């Protein structure tokens, strides 16, 4: 029997795009396209098992070995710093991690900067690199309203098109880091399922023209 390669895919549109890449690379699993509520799909013939998980959980599945490989956003990798290999930039799901504030915001370096964010680790590292004293306000959603309600001076968040910011009279002041989807691997799986993983990396690299 073929050794199964377990792949954690992020639920949603990004995951579907990623699956298409895997399919093209020869790791197809037709049952994944059936309309149902199943979360695990496998193709024993090819030796692959896919499962849909919450995008922010992919790195945990991979780090703990429940998945051998997976696809996670760079934002998640920077925020949680999982102990995994980052094998490939898939050049999809592109956006940026940015500092945004009200259009009329003027930074006063003599005051502690209040930063609202879902990405406390990224924000802390960024401002530490600038030697800036900050007060982190960790929020789980609707980050954009924090400066409007004077809960914070700025926000650190993912910006894709900037439309949400614009509609809330906010604008980007600094880009911290560009974000895209990355192919990650469990460190131990990379050793023991090396051929399968290298094959996927090779095939997808070729698709991306890398």
């Amino acid at each position, binding site marked *: 029997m073929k050794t199964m390669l377990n792949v954690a895919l992020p639920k949603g549109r990004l995951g579907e795009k990623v699956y298409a890449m895997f399919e093209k690379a020869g790791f197809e699993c037709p049952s994944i396209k059936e309309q149902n509520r199943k979360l695990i799909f496998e193709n024993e013939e090819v030796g692959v098992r896919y499962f849909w998980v919450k995008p922010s959980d992919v790195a945990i599945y991979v780090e*703990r070995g429940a998945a051998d490989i997976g696809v996670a956003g760079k934002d998640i990798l920077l925020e949680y710093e999982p*102990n995994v*290999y*980052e094998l490939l930039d898939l050049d999809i799901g592109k956006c940026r991690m940015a500092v945004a504030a009200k259009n009329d915001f003027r930074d006063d370096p003599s005051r502690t900067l209040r930063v609202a964010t879902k990405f406390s680790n990224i924000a802390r590292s960024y401002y530490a690199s600038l030697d800036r004293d900050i007060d982190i306000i960790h929020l789980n959603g609707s980050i954009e309203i924090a400066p409007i309600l004077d809960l914070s001076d700025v926000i650190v968040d993912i910006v894709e098109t900037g439309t949400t910011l614009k509609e809330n009279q906010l604008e980007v002041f600094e880009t911290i880091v560009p974000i895209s989807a990355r192919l990650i691997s469990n*460190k131990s*799986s990379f*050793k*023991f399922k090396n051929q399968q993983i290298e094959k996927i990396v090779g095939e997808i690299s070729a698709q991306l023209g890398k």
Partner: protein
Amino acid sequence: MIINDSLLKYDEKAIFALRDLYSKYGFTQYKMSKFEEYDLYVKNKDFLVSDSVITFNDTNGKLMALKPDVTLSIIKNTKDIKGFVQKFYYNENVYRVSQKTKTFKEIMQVGLECIGDIDEYCIAEVLALAARSLVTFSEEAVLDISHLGILSEIFDYASLSEADRDIAMKLIGEKNIHEIEKLLNDKGVSEDRVKEIKAVLSAYGDSDTVLATLKRSCIFKSGSKTLKDFENVINAVKLCDLGRILRIDFSVTGDIKYYNGIVFRGFISGIPSSVLSGGQYDKLMKKMQKKSGAIGFAVYLDMLERYLTSPKKCDVDTVIVYDEATSLELLNNTVEAYAKKGSVCVQRCIPEKFTYKTLVKISNGEVNILENDA
């Protein structure tokens, strides 16, 4: 004393097996106290896996710590003896913050340290013992070996600054070749050199294949002593018939403030993270005002039990339930008869969720086997 080793837990058996292995090669046990002065760890904070340490004030007011690490204590207590290598092994509990749960954990660690005039044989012996330690647990094991001297030559080839070397080292540890390429491009490294560096850093696999890639590379063409030493050590380990589990992997890195030369990490199939980690740490020795060189490794036993053993199917082999009419003689005889076959638990009634293979009920002086799943 006769020991029934079926009662030993997997990690307890592993400790005995490793102690036996290390003793055979002339390593002596280093036993230490659970506590150490906090000062030792403050001075070498970056060397620790996590920088949080459990501290307390001793009765004399001194700030003490529950040991988060064993190596520092061993170095502190060794003397420089010219031409001699002190060989120690240990099995100790260490207390550190788990990277996964972010809370303190007690971790049983077994390992060894060689301190003194470290030569190629000594390095090869330690690597072979690391490989043998892994094979003790499973034949499906991999010992990844890297050399910080080789990485340093690669950084020289790219003329990277100290700050950029730190960034590059982190990316190499992640096998993040695409961001290394970006870093090198941003630093103005020529396209040809970037290509050479990428080829070397992405090389992974058996030692012959990777060494051939290294020798072909322009980076080492002028004849690198580091590469020659690396090859000698790898070949020496292969002489011990351990080549099958050796891999060269430059993603094994270490803090260059403390480590130099060979660094390595061990994996076992089915366990999601490394179970063994080690390397040469001459720079740490120097930092601690020692003239000797040093190399060692630690085996982390906490993962082995969980992944290499199945959960117990039942609490006990036999439960004997008796009533008030049962004579002590009959009860004793029955217990002794079943104790010869396995574990026995004598109860008046069976607690909820208590699991067993055989139920023996003694009622009105009669012995009945009521349930027998064995």
